[in-house]
């Protein structure tokens, strides 16, 4: 039981991070129908920038946090402006290949900037770990869960409660109809790119203190986030959260009760399974044919 609880804690912690990454995928997919395979690189940029700004330049934690998100969002905007917007015939396959190309480029730039070594940042606070029913709970886990909760709530409020959020949703549902009402769909797409990149950065910031970060971490994390998003049903925000947590917990249990070599395999196994059994994802039965 105690062992199970321990795995659960670590699973939920990782799962919350996968959930933010998955939200980044979902956010962009909902607004543009595009799967951005450079999403994982935003996570990498988030982690490495945070380490540099916070540990390297010794900025305060909140400042480093905000600057990192802002910086990575700008990278997202640049990607949209330079690589996506300029495509003459935006066939989905072409766009996907462009995002793969962008991910290779970003990885290369990061290797030049940060080198090939792995880096890590200290935990957000220096409190002692807690004991819960015999299992250890790290303060960093609470930070992660708290921040993810804040982000999910804020996102929910943004889409349901603000005019911009609704306009973005409207563009996603019917771009032509939105354009007819005077809603600038280009701005909304740009905003979606910025927000989804920012979401990736948050994932990276959260991961920096609990694992080693290096220029090539984005690929695995991106695919796990994608898997979580697919698991929950692409296009569903709550699905992304659910998928992330589920993936994190299954991974932790797989590592705990079977073998640690299973860790990265579980995501791909799940991905194949979900594509085979329920391609629309757990919550996404309706969302798939919306476009």
């Amino acid at each position, binding site marked *: 039981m105690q062992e199970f609880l321990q795995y659960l804690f670590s699973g939920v912690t990782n799962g919350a991070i996968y959930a933010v990454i998955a939200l980044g995928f979902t956010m962009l997919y909902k607004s543009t129908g595009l799967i951005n395979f450079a999403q994982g690189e935003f996570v990498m940029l988030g982690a490495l920038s945070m380490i540099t700004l916070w540990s390297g330049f010794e900025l305060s934690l909140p400042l480093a946090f905000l600057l990192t998100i802002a910086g990575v969002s700008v990278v997202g905007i640049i990607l949209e402006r330079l690589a996506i917007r300029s495509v003459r015939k935006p066939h989905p396959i072409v766009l996907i290949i462009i995002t793969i190309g962008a991910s290779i480029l970003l990885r290369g730039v990061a290797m030049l900037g940060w080198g090939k070594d792995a880096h890590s940042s200290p935990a957000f606070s220096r409190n002692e770990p807690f004991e819960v029913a015999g299992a250890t709970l790290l303060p960093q886990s609470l930070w992660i869960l708290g921040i993810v909760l804040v982000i999910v709530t804020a996102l929910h409020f943004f889409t349901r409660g603000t005019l911009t959020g609704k306009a973005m949703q*409207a563009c996603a549902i019917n771009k032509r*109809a939105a354009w007819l009402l005077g*809603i600038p769909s280009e701005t909304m797409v740009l905003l979606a790119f910025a927000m989804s990149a920012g979401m990736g950065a948050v994932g990276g910031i959260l991961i920096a203190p609990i694992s080693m970060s290096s220029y090539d971490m984005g690929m695995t994390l991106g695919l796990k986030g994608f898997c979580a998003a697919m698991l929950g049903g692409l296009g569903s925000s709550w699905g992304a959260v659910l998928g992330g947590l589920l993936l994190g917990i299954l991974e932790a249990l797989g590592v705990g009760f079977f073998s640690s070599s299973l860790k990265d395999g579980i995501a791909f196994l799940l991905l194949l399974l979900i594509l085979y059994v329920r391609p629309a994802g757990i919550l996404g039965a309706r969302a798939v044919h919306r476009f």
Partner: protein
Amino acid sequence: MLRIRNLKCYYGRIRAINGVSLSVKPREMVALIGANGAGKSTLLQTICGLLPGWEGDMRYEKEPLSGLRPPEIVRRGISLVPEGRLLFPPMSVLDNLKLGAYLRYRRREQAAINGDLEHVLDLFPVLRERARQPAGTLSGGEQQMLAIGRALMARPRLLLLDEPSMGLAPFLVKLILDILVQLKDDGMTILLVEQNARAALQVADRGYVLENGHIVLDGPADELLADQDVKRAYLGKDYREFYDGRA
């Protein structure tokens, strides 16, 4: 109010509108009738800025419309109720209406928007009942009312409607046209596109007949209703048959 001279519209190299001229005066209701594929929707979409790359001269309140995009055109006071309604089905009736006023929210006209929202809900009481329901759950007639209400939320002075009677039972067609007459009496200028020629000409002041991208006839609505050619081409069928054919 709206004056179009020698308009030509293209889809790629195909010319869908071939030198159309028409005008709409303030507080007038003008019907534009024509068979399927005549170019009616193309004309309305061009006025709204959805189809750039047209040639000719289009002026609204004496200002040229060339080079303007939908946001600027909506801001000047032209709104389109598009063919097929183009609502946002998963979103609530209220959200659909509010998005109609998107540009006005951006200019912080909050109080005026709330007033207009009440006005639209008074005009279509059924929308008030269903305010929190997703738009996709409404019946066809209710959806058409929502589409008109959404367009009104931009507070247009010129309202363009593309086949608002499409797929609706005769009593709903009448209800919608009655609302248009009421809007006109309140000072709205209306350009109504219809295949349902008889119904449209009965409420309009003037009419144009469009065929293959050309205006072939125009005049006061009652004269068009009595015109032999129009009768043969557009009013020949009994009203009920007409409706049955399109439902």
